[in-house]
């Protein structure tokens, strides 16, 4: 990459079951507050990339009423209909082209107050065979994946629960989190409502209302706007085959490929040692060891060791989701963007109580959509 792109600022809402404001004011306040922090106006933004979902917002072309609220009135706008990490990717490509110097990524969803997300996700299913069968949905797909991993790696239910405990406790250190439990135990997790075994409520993401906004800039502009740019060192994205039965849900082909592409661009050959912290869109905690292995952060089948030795704790050797991850709060499509914001925050040393101590130089952020993460985006960020 000749041209470099940096993340110069970002803001997240406090996540809740129901935001006190409708989405228009929620995003307006957030964008305004970011502009105030950066001492810019909407005149300084060359293009806006929105990430929202008509299905999640319950209206057609759901961004069309949001244009003035996010500062995009009479300006250049496009919308990505996928996880918001894809919007950051698209914004980055627009800047790399040389046509733009700054790009604002805006994402929102009322995932807590407006609908039951597993039902809406069922609309992703093949309407001919899978939807009428009512067997496959995002929970059962993740459960199949979890069972496959537990069979292969011998991860126990206790160890699976301990990953949930990590995230609940991390959430308690994240002032924006919706679900937090400082003294969570494996017993709490194993006593929570069963969704589709082995997955229970406390293994799953917490649907939330919320938004995140992020400003990207070219190298020259970044240096004007901030003393602490977070550089996008590498990015990779990839989509798997559709039918669950034709995928190896443990191997996660598309995630392996996406990570490989990101590492190649970033010039990293040893991610397990080089990556200082990872924020992953693990909608179910069973995905933490699976995704970490697919991305080469931990060795194959080492989920049990990682859990019992605390490798992925905030103080561990490869901290994963110090923010609490999607278990702390997940406004659906906003997920990937939040992971990127959290990873950036770690690199800048701004993560407060959930800051990883060993000042990371490189961070990994991930976004996904589809049953058992069929489509993945991986970012490597550096300071």
């Amino acid at each position, binding site marked *: *990459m000749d041209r470099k792109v940096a993340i110069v600022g970002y803001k997240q809402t406090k996540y809740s079951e129901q935001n006190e404001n409708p989405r228009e004011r929620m995003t307006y306040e957030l964008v305004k507050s970011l502009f105030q922090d950066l001492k810019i106006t909407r005149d300084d933004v060359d293009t806006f990339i929105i990430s929202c979902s008509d299905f999640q917002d319950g209206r057609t072309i759901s961004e069309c009423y949001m*244009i003035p609220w996010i500062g995009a009135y009479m300006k250049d706008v496009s*919308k990505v209909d996928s996880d918001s990490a894809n919007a950051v990717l698209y914004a980055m490509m627009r800047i*790399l082209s040389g046509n733009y110097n700054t790009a604002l990524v805006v994402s929102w969803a009322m995932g807590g107050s407006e609908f039951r997300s597993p039902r809406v996700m069922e609309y*992703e299913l093949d309407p001919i065979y899978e939807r009428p069968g009512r067997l496959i949905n995002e929970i059962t797909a993740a459960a199949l994946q979890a069972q496959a991993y537990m069979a292969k790696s011998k991860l126990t239910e206790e160890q699976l629960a301990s990953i949930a405990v990590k995230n609940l406790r991390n959430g308690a250190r994240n002032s924006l989190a919706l679900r937090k439990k400082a003294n969570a135990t494996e017993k709490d997790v194993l006593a929570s409502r069963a969704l589709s075994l082995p997955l229970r409520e406390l293994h799953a993401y917490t649907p939330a209302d919320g938004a995140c906004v992020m400003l990207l800039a070219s190298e020259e502009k970044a240096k004007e706007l901030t003393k602490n740019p977070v550089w996008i060192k590498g990015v990779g994205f990839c989509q798997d085959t559709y*039918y669950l039965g034709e995928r190896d849900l443990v191997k996660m082909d598309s995630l392996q490929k996406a990570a490989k592409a990101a590492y190649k661009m970033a010039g990293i050959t040893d991610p397990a040692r080089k990556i200082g912290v990872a924020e992953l869109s693990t909608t179910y905690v069973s995905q933490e060891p699976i995704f970490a292995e697919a991305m080469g952060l931990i060795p194959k089948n080492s989920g049990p060791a990682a859990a019992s030795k605390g490798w992925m704790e905030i103080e561990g050797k490869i901290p994963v989701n110090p923010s609490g991850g999607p278990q702390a709060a997940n406004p659906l499509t906003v997920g990937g963007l939040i992971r990127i914001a959290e990873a950036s925050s770690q690199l800048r040393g701004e993560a407060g109580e959930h800051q990883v101590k060993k000042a990371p130089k490189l961070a990994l952020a991930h976004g996904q959509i589809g049953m058992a993460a069929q489509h993945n985006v991986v970012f490597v960020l550096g300071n």
Partner: protein
Amino acid sequence: MRNVAIISVGYNDRFVAKRPDVNIPEMIQPAVANALKKTKMKHSDIGVVVEGNMPTFEGINYPHLWFSDHIGAAGKPVLRISTGGTTGMSVFHGGYYCVASGMFDVAMVIGWEKHDEGDAQVGLMGIVLPEAFSLFQFGPDMSGGRGGGMGLLGGGGSTGGASFQALSYLAKAKGTPEHIDKMAAQARANAAKNPYAHLQHPNCTAADIAKTPMVSYPLRYGHTCPASCGACVMLLVAEEKVKKFADTDRVAWVKAVATASSDGTTGNLVDGQITDPAEQAICEKIAAPKAYKLAGIQNPKKEIQMCEVYDGFAHQELMWPEKLHLVDNSCKAIDEGRLAIDGEMPVNPSGGVVSTNAIGASAMVRVAEASLQVMGLAEGGHQVPRRVKNAVAHGWGGLFQFVTITILGDEPVKR
């Protein structure tokens, strides 16, 4: 900045009202095969796939996940973009930026819609549904005073807003509803020269159109687009790879892309403000000048040989060329025959959206058709007779508030 060329266009088949014989993946797959066939490329040469359609219209969320295998996207990077009516061109722009950024050498872009699996009017009503429901709760302001109540209900479905736009345009242009009849007739007659168009009416006349029932004055049934099923695929390649992959001597170079958005046209319930959808400053004052500047075009009327504009309704085929600075007054121009295929400024030789509208594809089809004109490959008699050095493709969407523009040429811009 990297130059990007379009090296081929593929349609699945002729666009039609119903395709009960195929499901969505099966409908799209032939368009991919047809685009690839016309190149020296293998499917494995495609670096990235960018795709889009209207998300709720067929009731499938993230449909690109389902047809992953039918389009050969499994194992490839895929990006999904959707922006209402401008989706097709926003998807094209996404593919363009994938290559222009330097991240990929080859992008495949796909725009599609299968309207027989949904109801387009219901889908479009979904834009204003929350506002409409709150009106029913609180009672609309029937006085039409400060509140925009009646205006909003009248905006239901796109024909309501479009009829307002048509009247406002005619007043500005000093035209009459008969001009819209003439434009629609030209469109349907042009479509008869395009083997892929949906509504083909050879030798259609203004009188034929004027016989059709009025829907919402001044718009008649004959002025309105159909709901079509079909897919459009294009292959975009970086300059250095064109010789390797293109199977034609003439490719279509992307000289500029631009887009702009404003607020939705129905205005707001409290203040009753309405942005005049016939004003379109986002096109006339923002996106079009930006595009021409990037493309190095100083005098569009002289340097552009044809345009494909997004005309969901026939009056838009009159309005947009004016907003794109290609024609001073389209009502006069059509009276003088200047907008015909063999005219001075051919508008929509393909028949336009008013003859073929698979919404997710339509704005991309404008680019596809403009590129076919530049490449000299438009079939069935709709190739314009003059050599096309530069062409403009345009799309609009949302509540008359999004605009996308692509400028193509037979040579890359010197950078």
